[in-house]
């Protein structure tokens, strides 16, 4: 050890530092208690609950259309897909089959949501690793998706566009035109993302081979979404249990076997292209039909238990509703992807450098309100 730092950093003993709750690279209020030996990570303990709002408890005193507005606030980057999950569960319980028009529009909006979420991931992941330019490029393109949302849904991030039985409203007349314009634009610009970051030597050095997870570990820890698929765990709900219009489109499930930080990043980059393919297949064929089914003003689910999974931008979101026949649910449980994906952070980062911990937790793409709920 150098003369200058002798006695300042303990050489052979572990010491503990707090990363967060106010740390720029945790994207929210996540506190990681990291124990270190030199700069090698020995143990990571996540401490969560700083923005625990008790959404599951609140749901017990709310009607089903009201619950939808709470799900926006869980994973705010997959807001539309969260709404869809609740709507699908309620529709399944009531035995309602929504029109093809609704299915198509929901699928297109879900994929646009996935694109904007991965764009923000790319932007912030680049920033975490020291490439500030990524942030501006990512947000520049994400703005265009949010403008489409604003026109059709009224909201930009918190959309609340789904309602049990259909949609809140019909799509804006410009929706198809603007979506096609965006796809055309984004196909031309997405190579900039690769030019800026993917091919960068420093970026590759910092991500390749870091934070490896095997397929067995991914299943054992229940890691889904891009995180699981980078380890070769085929877990895409859109493929295995298709909902909405996913059974009518052709798309590939992106799978890699390496399971390191770089490939978790790569899955998301490829998924953006795949999402654009899905939108291409649907956008010109939106069938005519009602944008909502006739629903009773007060929705009461028949007594029973209902479970529905959807694929958000971060993994599998499961909605489990237990109803006792009232207008309020008896119990609602959200199996949120980030909550499950956070748990294995300890085994992923053990033995790596503390700077890599930022890269690993960045590659999990954590959204803290989704963990805390």
């Amino acid at each position, binding site marked *: 050890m150098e003369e200058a730092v002798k006695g300042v950093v303990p050489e052979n003993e572990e010491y503990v530092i707090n990363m967060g709750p106010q740390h720029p690279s945790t994207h929210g209020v996540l506190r990681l208690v990291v124990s270190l030996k030199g700069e090698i990570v020995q143990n990571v303990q996540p401490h*969560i609950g700083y923005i625990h709002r008790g959404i599951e408890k609140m749901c017990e*005193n709310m009607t089903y259309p009201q619950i939808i507005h709470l799900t926006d606030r869980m994973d705010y980057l997959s807001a539309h897909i969260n709404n869809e999950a609740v709507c699908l569960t309620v529709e399944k319980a009531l035995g309602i089959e929504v029109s093809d028009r609704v299915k198509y529009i929901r699928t297109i909006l879900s994929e646009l949501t996935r694109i904007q979420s991965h764009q923000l991931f790319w932007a912030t992941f680049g920033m975490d690793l020291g490439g500030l330019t990524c942030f501006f490029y990512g947000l520049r393109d994400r703005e265009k998706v949010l403008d489409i949302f604003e026109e059709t849904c009224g909201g930009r991030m918190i959309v609340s566009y789904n309602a049990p039985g259909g949609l809140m409203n019909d799509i804006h007349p410009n929706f198809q035109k603007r979506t096609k314009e965006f796809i055309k634009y984004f196909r031309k610009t997405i190579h900039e993302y690769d030019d800026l970051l993917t091919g960068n030597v420093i970026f590759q050095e910092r991500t390749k081979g870091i934070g490896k997870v095997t397929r067995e570990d991914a299943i054992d820890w229940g890691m889904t979404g891009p995180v699981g698929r980078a380890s070769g765990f085929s877990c895409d709900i859109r493929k295995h249990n298709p909902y909405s219009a996913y059974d009518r489109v052709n798309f590939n499930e992106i799978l890699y076997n390496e399971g390191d930080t770089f490939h978790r990043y790569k899955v998301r980059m490829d998924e953006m292209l795949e999402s654009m393919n899905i939108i291409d297949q649907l956008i010109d064929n939106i069938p005519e039909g009602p944008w909502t089914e006739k629903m009773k003003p007060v929705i009461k689910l028949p007594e*029973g238990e209902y479970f529905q999974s959807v694929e958000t931008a971060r993994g599998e979101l499961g909605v489990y509703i237990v109803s006792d026949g009232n207008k309020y649910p008896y119990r609602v*449980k959200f*199996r949120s992807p980030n909550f499950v994906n956070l748990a294995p952070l300890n085994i992923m980062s053990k033995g790596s450098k503390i700077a890599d911990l930022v890269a690993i937790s960045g590659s999990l793409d954590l959204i803290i309100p989704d963990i805390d709920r």
Partner: protein
Amino acid sequence: MEKKQLAAVVASIAQDSVITEGLQFVEITVSPENLVKVVSALKFNRETALDLLVSLTGMDYGTDLGIVYHLRSTTFNHMLVVKTRVSDRENPGIDSLCSVYKSAEFHEREVFDLLGIKFNGHPDLRRLFLDSTWGFPLRKDYKDDINILGK
């Protein structure tokens, strides 16, 4: 695997449990003593191969407390719902599934935090979201002075 077929296979593995075909999935009710034995048998059996713990939900049924496990097979893509109940509200205890599924660790901490069910054999059972002064908010008899929605 079809629901009927799965129910038959599950019945041969877990003999002294109640098996019903629910609306969506096959459901099996296990007593807390047999839980770990039955679930690990379901996980390692070649025909069921339920190797993914999708979700773990703590329930308050009014008189009983219980846990609902949603298990999925990554090879066959079928789901099974496992349920268990304890009637002791003062000091409820259920065996931990951490030895079978590692992902149960975080889920069980959440249930312990919000419903106060203790998991025997859990490696690190601490409260997850709330501090130790709180009650157990997801219980139906929880009195909340702050939340105006409950009134």
